[in-house]
């Protein structure tokens, strides 16, 4: 079963590289991420598959918005592109093939040692609690890289906010790209939104039991705001308090994790271990949700300078 999807995966990658037009490129990228999510699932990693599905949906939205924004700027000059000589395709191709062959030869033949895996698998539910080993690891044993990953998220959000200029007054009333809101869409999305919220709470709440966790819940909550945008456009989105909130949540994450993990609070605090995991997941979820909402908002409200 796995080789079939891997072939499909390679095929979609080749298709994407050969595609010339930006419109189709974005669609094929969506297909590619979907197939790679299925491959993750087949490689026994449901957590990663779910994160990949949610995230690829989001990045496809960003691509489409970017295409719409820049397409209106780009004067379709379509100046005749110089005919690429046949040779100019071969040299890079040959170069990559040689590189690929070199790397493939370097794959270690024997399987990597698994003592670390057994170590983790045996001890994780005892020490960190919860059944989901993956969450236990990235929230318990490897708390450092989660901290810095959240910091990385914060920094890239700041970068997006900095790079995309827009003046607030100009963004007063802009319904989504001219498709007037036939109330069918409005009503259906209003019916759908609570379910979306419930799903994100479910993902965050038992991230330590079933696959799921802070990240997934956060991105689904961001999808809730995307739906809201579909109905209302950008009329009344106040973004600055979301920015501030994200910073505060990050601070709380740092304090909370430091207090718990480094000071080894497990030993003398009576609260059960699961609580720590859930709270951490919740904080991460809120942070990721704010982060993606800001990115989406900046993308939509990207005004001409």
């Amino acid at each position: 079963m796995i080789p079939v999807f891997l072939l499909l995966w390679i095929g979609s990658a080749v298709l994407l590289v050969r595609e010339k037009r930006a419109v189709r490129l974005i669609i094929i990228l969506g297909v590619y991420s979907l197939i790679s999510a299925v491959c993750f699932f087949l490689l026994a990693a449901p957590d990663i598959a779910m994160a990949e599905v949610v995230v690829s949906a989001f990045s496809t939205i960003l691509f489409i918005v970017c295409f719409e924004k820049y397409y209106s700027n780009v004067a379709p000059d379509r100046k005749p592109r110089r005919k690429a000589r046949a040779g100019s395709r071969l040299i890079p191709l040959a170069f990559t093939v040689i590189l690929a062959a070199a790397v493939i030869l370097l794959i270690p033949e024997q399987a990597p040692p698994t003592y670390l895996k057994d170590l983790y698998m045996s001890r994780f539910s005892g020490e960190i609690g919860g059944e989901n080993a993956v969450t236990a690891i990235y929230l318990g044993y490897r708390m450092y890289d989660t901290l810095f990953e959240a910091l990385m998220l914060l920094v890239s959000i700041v970068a997006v906010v900095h790079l995309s200029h827009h003046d607030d007054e100009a963004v007063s009333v802009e319904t989504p790209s001219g498709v007037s809101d036939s109330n069918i869409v409005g009503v259906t999305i209003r019916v759908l939104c609570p379910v979306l919220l419930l799903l994100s709470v479910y993902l965050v709440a038992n991230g330590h039991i079933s696959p799921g966790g802070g990240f997934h819940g956060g991105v689904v909550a961001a999808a809730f705001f995307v739906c809201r945008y579909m109905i209302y456009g950008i009329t009344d989105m106040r973004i600055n308090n979301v920015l501030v909130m994200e910073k505060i949540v990050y601070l709380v994450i740092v304090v909370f994790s430091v207090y718990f993990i480094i000071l080894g609070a497990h030993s003398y605090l009576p609260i059960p271990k699961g609580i720590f995991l859930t709270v951490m997941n919740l904080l991460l979820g809120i942070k990721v949700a704010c982060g993606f909402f800001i990115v989406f908002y900046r993308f939509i409200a990207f005004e001409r300078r």
Partner: protein
Amino acid sequence: MIILLTGVWIVLRESLTVATAVVGLVLSVCCVLLSRRLIPLAKTEPVKPLRLLVYLFYLLMQIYIGGLTSIAIVLLGSHVEIVEIKTQLRNRLLRAILVNSITLVPGSVTLDLTEDTITVLWLTRKTASSEELENADELLKGKLERMLMKAQK
């Protein structure tokens, strides 16, 4: 709406204990309140839920019939028409359901819904004779709308 959401929560948690039910109830209540606050839903007239269930099963049957017909359309070839049809439904929720079910029933995709006219993209046999256009709305949404009318309180 809230009962539905608690049902969803129980199915998600895969454990039918009282605790999950209570937690589900609390969570769905605050979910609905939050989404109401963020996306205020215009007041919609009450709807008889039982009638909707019957409508749901009828819709499923209709979809399957439609699925088979559109396979025929795929094989035979088709002619695309844009048709306006009238509707008497007033309740916003029911109109949305009607429009969605028209889109679901193969052979037609709704394009627009103004006060009372629905513009529908309609796939017909090779030649769409004029009389066929007249009774288009009968064909498209006849029974569906009648059932929905009953569902209106």
